[in-house]
């Protein structure tokens, strides 16, 4: 046989780790393609959700983290709503992004990750999102200094941009949840890889 798919040992570790983090069992995916058919971002994606799930099933970690697909997912959840096997595909995309970050993987499309970072930084700093500050940091970090710069003055004129950040008395509480969640996700990573290691027969 020219090609052989092995689904034992090391190959199932990736699927086990995704399951430990998301609760989603990707062995249920029979590759019908419904998720990709409904995905609004497929024209920009390299693989689309169906193939992404296949790479996880096959334990192809390197190929998985090379994809732009999880980073282009807009979280519209059309895939999740339509999956005939009730797989929460959008959650899997979240978890792949999370795993890539925790494993320090190089991300093939940097802009969505920068946006995620500056958005959440603004929330952590102020308790509430400060839209103008967030966009300024985005432009600095992405190097696209004049991105959407034409929209800013128009929005200001319309009174659609606040000039100062709003804050909240619950900002510290919010930060505490951020810190705790960060500690927990690292712990979960260790546990997941240990469990996957045990179950894959080592």
């Amino acid at each position: 046989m020219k090609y052989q798919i092995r689904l034992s040992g090391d190959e199932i570790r990736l699927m086990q780790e995704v399951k430990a983090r998301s609760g989603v069992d990707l062995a249920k995916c029979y590759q019908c393609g419904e998720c990709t058919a409904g995905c609004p971002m497929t024209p920009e994606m390299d693989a689309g959700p169906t193939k992404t799930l296949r790479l996880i099933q096959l334990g192809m970690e390197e190929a998985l983290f090379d994809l732009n697909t999880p980073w282009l997912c807009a979280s519209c959840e059309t895939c999740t709503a339509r999956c005939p096997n009730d797989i929460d595909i959008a959650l899997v995309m979240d978890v792949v992004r999370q795993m890539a970050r925790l494993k320090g993987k190089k991300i093939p499309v940097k802009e969505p990750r920068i946006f995620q970072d500056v958005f959440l930084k603004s929330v952590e700093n102020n308790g509430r999102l400060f839209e103008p500050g967030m966009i300024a940091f985005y432009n600095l970090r992405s190097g696209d200094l004049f991105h959407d710069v034409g929209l800013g003055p128009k929005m200001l004129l319309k009174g659609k941009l606040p000039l100062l950040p709003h804050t909240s008395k619950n900002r510290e509480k919010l930060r505490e949840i951020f810190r705790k969640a960060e500690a927990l996700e690292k712990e979960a990573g260790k546990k997941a890889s240990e469990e996957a290691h045990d179950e894959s027969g080592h």
Partner: protein
Amino acid sequence: MTYAYYPGCSLKGTAIDYHTSALALAERLGIELKEMEDWVCCGASPIHQRNPALASGVANLLLSLSEGISKDVAVLCAACYHNMKKAEVEMREDGKKRNEVEELSGIPFNPEVRTRHFLDILDKDYGLNALKEKVVKPLSELRVACYYGCLLSRPPEIAFDDPEQPMIMERILEAAGAETVSWSHRLECCGASHAVPLTDAVLRLVNDVLASARDAGADIIACACPLCQANLDMRQEGIRAKLGVAHNLPAVYFTQLLGIACGATGKQVMIEKGMVSAVPLLRAKNLL
């Protein structure tokens, strides 16, 4: 009728017109939207894209702020609604998940709390007959495309109407005298916050949505989400520049149209805030 109101960040900034028009409408209907104190950002999509558990933890904090006001939390933003409702439903149905979220947030979950979108409140609590009685300026001859986008009805567990074929916005606007159109892209994604990092993709998606509404004969699009409205309205100039298509189709909040129908002035619903102005159209229909 008093609700614990969670505006969320956009409604105090780019979507100030959504916030203001909803309050103007609520006042006219006798619904009290009492803003919860010291609320924080729900984190929208970036928070669960980074860490799904973090999103639930923050949502539980937000739900707890309703205490002392009402067990029903009124929400207007689709992303806020999505994050809070999803966490609420998961915690109510899954004891293990509930323990995890309570542990992470350090806050007990109150299973009585319900996240309610304002559309759902109007439809189920207030009722269309009562709404009809408040209409003083019917939206007659206004052909409206009701745009749901993604997060009001996905995942299906959080939907307050049929998740694949919701009609709630049509029902409500028709009660106010509008004519609604049948169109293909009412639940298609506008690209949401990808507007910043992946602008070209969003221009493509928004162009498709606008073209679909236009082809169906709509005069105007009604939105129930600040990001949908921002993309549909503010990206029309980019679409004209990059894709060479001039839509000139106003996209406003459903609360602005309902507010006007219930007697609010254009200023009271901040109708002038749109980049593609709805004012000429509404004047032509004698609504302003």
